[in-house]
């Protein structure tokens, strides 16, 4: 167990490789109750959120979930998030490490309209994620909701094993799966029930170590690594989520300027040519020129143990195929740039 964002979290249960394999071939189960959960109700919620984020909120249909980024005036990322439009409320899920910051921003500085109410339900709401190709097989017997009919990046309200739940077909692993929002008082019982039912489908509880490898393989950013207050969503390669024709939002002008100037440092995916893993903080070179730094790095079991990494590099070296070097303990090790994601599930 390790301190993480104000919580004591498991880095691993049976081992990172074992848990990773479970998620990619069966089901992994994650306790994500540390993440911030803000409920928003009242008049004008989506229009207000649209003034604070880069992706469109007001165009979200009932039941839809959408990835988004809250930005500052410089276009830098305050946090990345998934926003859910549920029947009676909006749910904004934030990183645990940013909970206090985002609560202060949304509750205080961000011009919340008087008709909007926000509630931090984090202490009373748990989040259990099931991720992997056998997720439906595990979960369907426990609910009358037709899980197959929940579209990817959509959510419904239902009952799971007698427990009220928001069931979202979202995740942070690149696999099919469900994130279950339930009352904290129901969490232990549901976790135990899933643990008892789990072995028949190869379930493993999975910790933060496996979570980090899985999301890196899937090319998903981790706040503090591929995104932070000095890295914009454009730099992070999240152009698909940045809707610059939205009417005014915090950071819009800075992002318009950045896009029109071009030539900005950006996140690139790398694969090391050799056996030494790249790690966050290692420097990247092209010849004698310092070209950036590693932001995340790990061996990738889904790529046969190849060492993958993301780096923030000058625009000139970001093109897939570019040969670069990573300095590891004073020695230069060859690597090459690849397009993200490193891993895509077969559908």
């Amino acid at each position, binding site marked *: 167990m390790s301190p993480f964002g104000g919580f004591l979290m498991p880095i691993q249960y049976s081992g*990172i490789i074992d848990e990773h394999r479970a998620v990619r071939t069966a089901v992994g189960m994650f306790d994500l109750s540390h993440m911030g959960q803000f409920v928003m109700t009242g008049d004008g919620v989506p229009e207000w959120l649209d003034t604070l984020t880069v992706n469109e909120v007001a165009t979200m249909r009932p039941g839809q979930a959408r990835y988004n980024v809250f930005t500052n005036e410089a276009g830098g990322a305050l946090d990345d998030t998934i926003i859910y439009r549920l029947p009676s409320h909006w749910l904004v899920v934030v990183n645990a490490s940013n909970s206090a910051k985002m609560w202060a921003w949304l509750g205080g500085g961000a011009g919340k309209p008087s008709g909007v109410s926000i509630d931090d339900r984090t202490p009373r709401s748990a989040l259990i994620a099931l991720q992997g190709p056998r997720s439906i097989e595990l979960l369907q017997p426990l609910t009358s909701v037709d899980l197959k009919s929940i579209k990817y990046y959509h959510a419904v309200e239902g009952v799971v094993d007698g427990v009220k739940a928001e069931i979202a077909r979202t995740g942070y692993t690149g696999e099919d799966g469900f994130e279950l929002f339930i009352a904290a008082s129901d969490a232990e019982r549901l976790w135990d029930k899933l643990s008892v039912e789990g072995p028949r489908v190869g379930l493993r509880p999975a910790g933060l170590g496996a979570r980090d490898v899985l999301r890196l393989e899937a090319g998903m950013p981790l706040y503090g690594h591929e995104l932070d207050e000095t890295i914009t969503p454009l730099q992070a390669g999240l152009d698909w989520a940045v809707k610059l024709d939205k009417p005014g939002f915090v950071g819009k002008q800075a992002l318009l300027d950045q896009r029109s100037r071009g030539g900005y440092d950006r996140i690139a995916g790398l694969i090391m040519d050799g056996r030494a893993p790249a790690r966050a903080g290692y420097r990247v070179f092209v010849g004698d020129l310092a070209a950036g730094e590693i932001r995340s790095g790990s061996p990738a079991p889904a790529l046969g143990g190849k060492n993958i990494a993301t780096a923030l590099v000058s625009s000139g070296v970001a093109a897939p195929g570019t040969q670069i070097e990573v300095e590891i303990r004073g020695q230069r090790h060859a690597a090459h740039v690849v397009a993200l994601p490193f891993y895509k599930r077969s559908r």
Partner: protein
Amino acid sequence: MAQPTDRFYTKEHEWVKIDGARAVIGITEHAQNALGDIVYVELPKIGASVEQGKPIGVVESVKAVSDIFAPISGTVTEVNSSAVDDPAKVNGDPFGDGWLVKIDVADAGQSKQLLDAAAYDAVVQAESH
């Protein structure tokens, strides 16, 4: 588990088995267990001098880089290339086939600074609780 009594230990979870003028160095069962799956091992060059307490290489798990510190000073005579080729060996048999480095010993008296099996076991017990 009981620590093998035929060797000395460091607080950083290395072991050294001294045999006259030669010694073998590795990491302990406790260390491999705490690291988890080892994916990469970097060892010093043959002929390199190693100094007691100074880093001589690394052992990497999926998540983290861990320095290997020299329990005693000497000159590297051999490294375990099969452990470099198959780092899982270090997890599987850390006291045997997962050995890391062999050295010519500079000063056998340095073992006085090390822990014996019982003292190291006490360190392990303290860390596990």
